[in-house]
């Protein structure tokens, strides 16, 4: 091998090694500074309206392939294959086609809410459109996008079910209003990333692979609860749930109340529930680990409850279910 060939090979391998090393570092550790880490959340946030009352994210691929999901499936088998039914209706296989989803709820002026799910993955738009048409959907052009909309859905839903492809591999599904708003946001740019309060809250979360942030006081208006019930609910403004699903499920539920007094009251209520749960699970060892992992925290107007459910808990559930289903020996 000549010297210049050797130099070429070394340079080429160096580029590969540095690139892969940096990528590996970002993947496992995360490097601060915004270049290598997903500091500002998923890019699909650009399709979520600024005044969304609920924002959620799930790394479907990671969750679907996690150990704990397999254990849950074994412990609690679901009767009726909803996943296959969904695939039949939309042509989307949740396990293999979807990478991650961002979902939102936006309160509307008439008291209802518009839902939107933006999913990134591998989809066949031809197949999905054909399937939706089979189920009565119509196709129209809306601001340069093909909007597939089904008007034949139950009355109580209050809106149509619509779907569009925002980009290759990015599908938006939701109420007709929500999907149209997502298309409009591509031009206006008035998306949720401009909502400073919500974005600050999102950045403060240890996000994991599934999280939800919501404005409970706004969502409540859409629920149309009787005043007697509404008055009993704690005065929570923002709430968030962040979790990591891998070989176990761990996470934090956080609630921000209107004032410190409300936060103290809420803490007392949760403390009471925790004590009750510890008493109730004394004879259920499979639940004891879960209850013991619950930890109440938070200061000022914030109440936080962290939890950790090891995968073994689901194994114990599965074993209990199997022994209960086994016919008694004669």
């Amino acid at each position, binding site marked *: 091998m000549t010297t210049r060939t050797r130099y070429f090979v070394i340079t080429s391998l160096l580029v590969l090694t540095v690139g892969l090393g940096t990528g590996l570092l970002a993947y496992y550790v995360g490097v601060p500074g915004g270049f290598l880490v997903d500091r500002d959340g998923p890019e699909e946030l650009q399709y979520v309206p600024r005044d969304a009352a609920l924002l959620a994210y799930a790394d479907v691929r990671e969750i679907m392939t996690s150990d704990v999901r397999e254990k849950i499936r074994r412990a609690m088998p679901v009767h009726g294959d909803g996943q296959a039914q969904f695939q039949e209706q939309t042509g989307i296989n949740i396990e293999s086609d979807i990478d991650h989803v961002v979902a939102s709820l936006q309160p509307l002026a008439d008291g209802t809410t518009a839902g939107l799910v933006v999913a990134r993955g591998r989809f066949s*738009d031809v197949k999905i459109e054909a399937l939706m048409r089979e189920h009565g959907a119509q196709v129209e052009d809306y601001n340069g996008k093909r909007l597939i909309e089904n008007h034949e859905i139950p009355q109580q839903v209050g809106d149509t079910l619509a779907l569009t492809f925002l980009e290759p591999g990015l599908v938006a599904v939701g109420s007709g209003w929500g999907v149209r708003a997502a298309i409009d946001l591509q031009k206006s*740019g008035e998306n949720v990333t401009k909502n400073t309060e919500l974005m600050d809250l999102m950045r403060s979360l240890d996000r994991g692979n599934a999280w939800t942030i919501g404005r409970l006081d706004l969502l409540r208006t859409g629920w149309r609860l009787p005043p007697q019930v509404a008055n009993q609910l704690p005065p929570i403004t923002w709430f968030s749930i962040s979790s990591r699903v891998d070989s176990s499920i761990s996470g934090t539920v956080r609630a921000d109340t209107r004032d410190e007094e409300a936060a103290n009251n809420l803490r007392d209520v949760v403390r009471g529930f925790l004590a009750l749960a510890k008493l109730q699970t004394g004879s259920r060892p499979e639940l004891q680990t879960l209850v013991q992992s619950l930890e109440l925290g938070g200061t000022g107007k914030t109440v936080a409850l962290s939890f950790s459910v090891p995968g073994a808990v689901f194994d114990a559930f599965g074993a209990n279910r199997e022994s209960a289903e086994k016919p008694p020996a004669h």
Partner: protein
Amino acid sequence: MNLLTSAARIFDLSLGQMLWSRRSVFLGLVVGGPIVLAVALRLAEASGLMFAPNRPRPAGAMIYGMMIWLLYVRFLVPVLGVFYGTSLIADEVDDKTITYLFTRPIQRTAVIIGKYLAYLVCTVLLLLPSVVIVFFLVVPLGRGATIARMFPTLLTDLGMLALGLAAYGAVFAFVGARLKRPLVVGLIFALGCEPAVLIAPGYLKRATVAYYLQTLVRHEMPQNSPGAALLQIFNEVPPLSTSLIGLAVIVGLGLWLAGRTVESREYVLEQ
């Protein structure tokens, strides 16, 4: 000398020749094209020339996926395979130097294996660093950098492209050893016949490299062209295991046929 030692000698001799040929300079420029495009995109984003304010910027991951499909999988991998693969034996015949190789006390199969390995190292070293650079330049474009999240995809892409180079190289090594004008035939097959067969209904696509390679691409196929729409209608993606077995069979069969051809064929050098 046994087959492996002979192949290693040929590999050592051929790698330098391949890397510093005029072909490599041209293909180096072609492979550098995506890097130039990626740098241009980064500059456009930084200067604000390309992406207007208050408009969502295109997602870097999406652009990177499109580049992998259109530039690398559909163009660069077949072209590298054709240019280098067909030249493994054909160049020696054209330069009338094949006699020097065939009169050495080594098996003729060792010549094709050694040259094939040199091709693989040469193309992998040309292509993969280019993909890594493009990845780091393009993925952070737009909102929210996602290098950490996209890293497993980069690994899959590198593996997929290396497998593609191995498969195309083996096929065109056989073509180069068997035919007199292999480059023309290779280009017609890789850039004409193969894409056409992929969008046509029927089983013929199973005899192409691209059919098995497309399963390994984890990016969404660009869907904004009539060809892509046709491809979707007749799209038949084999399972991962079938694709891996298919590609392994193509590599094995291609090399075996190339070796057999080189062993049995009499190359007549034009005076």
